[in-house]
């Protein structure tokens, strides 16, 4: 008993100053305190100076009437809406262009990346030229290229080019017929969702059957039939509840229909093509990173080049590809703030306008930083989940 007590006392027997644990805790507490005091001082000084200069501060301005209009808005917005809602419109616009850009950039990137490894000389060289051109030009120039170089040379509204299915294209954008859903249209949506659910179920069953018996089932064509066929059936059954709002010519421009503006298109295409060049290189690195022995082994088992790529190489390459892919997605989201140069109302543009109309510089900038940080963290979180699914499962 006595000996144990002696043992327990031993570490504190020396001076506290010489105890490494105490010392490290002490230093960390002092550092943290210093940091907190520094931030406190900065914030206090800022508030003092703002008051001294009689500049309004605080977030109350978000409830004020915005007074300006926004061309592209996914939610109801007018000049009577609040500044807060205007910023929300910008946030949604940023999210839309980032999401659309990520999807397109991934598709183009994978095609070009695989293309660079093609055995066909022409495809390989075209893909190389694409990558070298796009990744070596600043993204702002790519945006200007699409906006001033490609889309603005399209004809003026009166000379709109007519496309099939009642669509038009002119320098103000693309115009498509807009679907107007009539009564009973919910049945079509229901059938569509049912089709997806059933396809998933079929795919699961087919997989189980293949595992058990080795027999294959045409999952792809069954799914197509279910996802397309069921809504078509519902469409007929509910008495054709679908009509189209066609774009028509009016004094200044085409009205009606669904319009995709050149500002959005330039930004979306520029971000997609620019980021795709980087994704292509990542994909190429991922595929190259899979040992050649894997391909040879698969070939020895009698697999053809298509299935080798699909079943052996790509699943392993994905493990290498996903982490750097996340960085590219984050870059694309952040680069979308270049929208301001061509007048697409993204978050940066609208928050900047709010900043100017209210004169409150610090708060809108804080909001912008918080939103981009939030979007990036969200993207990272989703990609981490995907990465965890793809990671090597050790049994």
């Amino acid at each position, binding site marked *: 008993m006595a000996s144990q007590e002696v043992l327990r006392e031993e570490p504190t027997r020396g001076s506290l100053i010489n105890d490494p644990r105490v010392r490290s805790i002490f230093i960390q507490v002092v550092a943290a305190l210093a940091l907190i005091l520094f931030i406190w001082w*900065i*914030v206090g*000084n*800022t508030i*003092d*100076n*703002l008051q*001294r*200069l*009689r*500049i*309004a501060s605080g977030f109350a301005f978000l409830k004020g009437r915005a*007074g*300006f*209009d*926004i*061309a592209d808005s996914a939610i109801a917005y*007018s*000049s009577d809406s609040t500044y807060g809602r205007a910023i929300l419109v910008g946030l949604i616009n940023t999210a839309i262009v980032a999401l659309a850009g990520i999807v397109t950039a991934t598709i183009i990137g994978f095609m070009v990346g695989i293309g660079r490894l093609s055995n066909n000389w022409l495809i390989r060289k075209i893909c190389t030229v694409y990558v070298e051109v796009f990744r070596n030009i600043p993204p702002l120039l790519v945006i200007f290229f699409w906006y*001033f170089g490609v889309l*603005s040379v399209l004809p*003026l509204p*009166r000379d709109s080019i007519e496309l099939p299915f009642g669509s038009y294209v002119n*320098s*103000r954008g693309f115009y498509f017929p807009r679907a107007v859903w009539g009564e009973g249209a919910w049945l079509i949506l229901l059938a569509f969702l049912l089709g997806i659910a059933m396809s998933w179920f079929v795919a699961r069953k087919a997989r189980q059957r293949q595992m058990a018996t080795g027999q294959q089932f045409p999952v792809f064509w069954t799914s197509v039939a279910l996802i397309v066929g069921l809504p078509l059936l519902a469409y007929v059954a509910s008495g054709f509840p679908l009509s189209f709002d066609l774009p028509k010519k*009016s*004094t*200044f*421009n085409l*009205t009606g229909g669904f319009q995709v503006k*050149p*500002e959005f298109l330039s930004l979306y295409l520029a971000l997609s093509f620019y980021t795709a060049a980087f994704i292509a290189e990542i994909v190429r690195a991922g595929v190259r990173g899979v040992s050649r022995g894997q391909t040879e082994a698969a070939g020895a088992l009698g697999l053809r080049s298509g299935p080798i790529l699909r079943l052996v190489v790509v699943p392993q390459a994905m493990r290498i590809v996903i982490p750097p892919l996340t960085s590219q997605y984050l870059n694309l989201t952040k680069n979308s*703030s270049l929208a*301001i*140069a*061509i*007048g697409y*109302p993204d978050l*940066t*543009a609208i928050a*900047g*306008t709010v*900043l*100017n*109309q*209210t*004169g*409150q*510089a*610090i708060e*809108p*900038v804080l909001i*912008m*930083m918080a939103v981009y940080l939030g979007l990036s963290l969200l993207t990272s979180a989703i990609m981490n989940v995907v990465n965890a699914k793809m990671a090597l499962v050790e049994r």
Partner: protein
Amino acid sequence: MKHIAIGILAAATMGLMASAASAASTLEAVKAKGFIQCGVNTGLSGFSSPDDKGEWKGLDADFCRAVAAAVFGDGTKVKFTPLSAKERFTALQSGEIDLLSRNTTWTINRDTALGLNFAGVTYYDGQGFMVNAKKLPGVNSALQLSGAAVCVQSGTTTELNLADYFKANKMEYNPVVFEKVEEANAAYDSGRCDAYTTDQSGLYGIRLTLSAPGDHVVLPEIISKEPLGPAVRQGDDQWYHIVKWTYFALLQAEELGITQANVDELKASGGPEVKRVLGQEADTKLGTDLGVSNDWVVNIVKSVGNYGEMFERNVGAGSPLKIARGLNGLWTKGGLQYAPPIR
């Protein structure tokens, strides 16, 4: 990203400015560094735009020179900071510039919530519309613009007036908003918009820069009051007074017929009022009380001329813009320009 940088700069300066720094007045700071940092437009013909030698020309740029002449006796002691509409207030608030002379509309919100002080109205303007008459032959009134795409600069009173005007007249429109004048001009010129809106003086200036100026007409409607003037930060009355009285001195000089050509002559031969304004009275303290030298008006007029000369040279008959004096004439000639007495 530039305005994010400015925002951070503002936050940083606001944060790091110790209370001691506030004691130094703008005048002392300006004298210590030897020049005035003046915020101007990135490029608006007649108001502030660099010419082919890189010299800033225009009414707003000349006003900066007038203040420099009053402070230093030398109108060249100015450095210009070209600013977009969005950056201008932050630049002034954060102390990046000493004086904002960038066709800025005087409003109550800017005078109060933004912490600015407007020193006067150097140009009485109003917002108008410009359309391409060749492409839209039938349009001769802004009320026919329902459904049009309108190019506009972001963060301006123009953007707000535009929304109000179309709403009040129950018309639809499609705003295409740009941060910089140059980008808005290029988009309008390429046919992205049916109409361009900004202050009418600006429309005349912008029209000159288009590829076919003759094709474009400015519509008759004026949809707002746009009193444009120089602004300074709140909380420094002395600096505010110097800027304000520089403006009044320009008007007073025109009223008394003091010009760049005759100012030296009038110093000796002028009447009592002319002599007083030019600081030639014995034991005068008008200039030193303001914080400048007593011959400050002489320096201003020598450097940029009187208000009338400035106007004609930059936007009036002597310029490609050929804008009539109109509201900007002196009060004695039916305009609104009026200076309190210098005595």
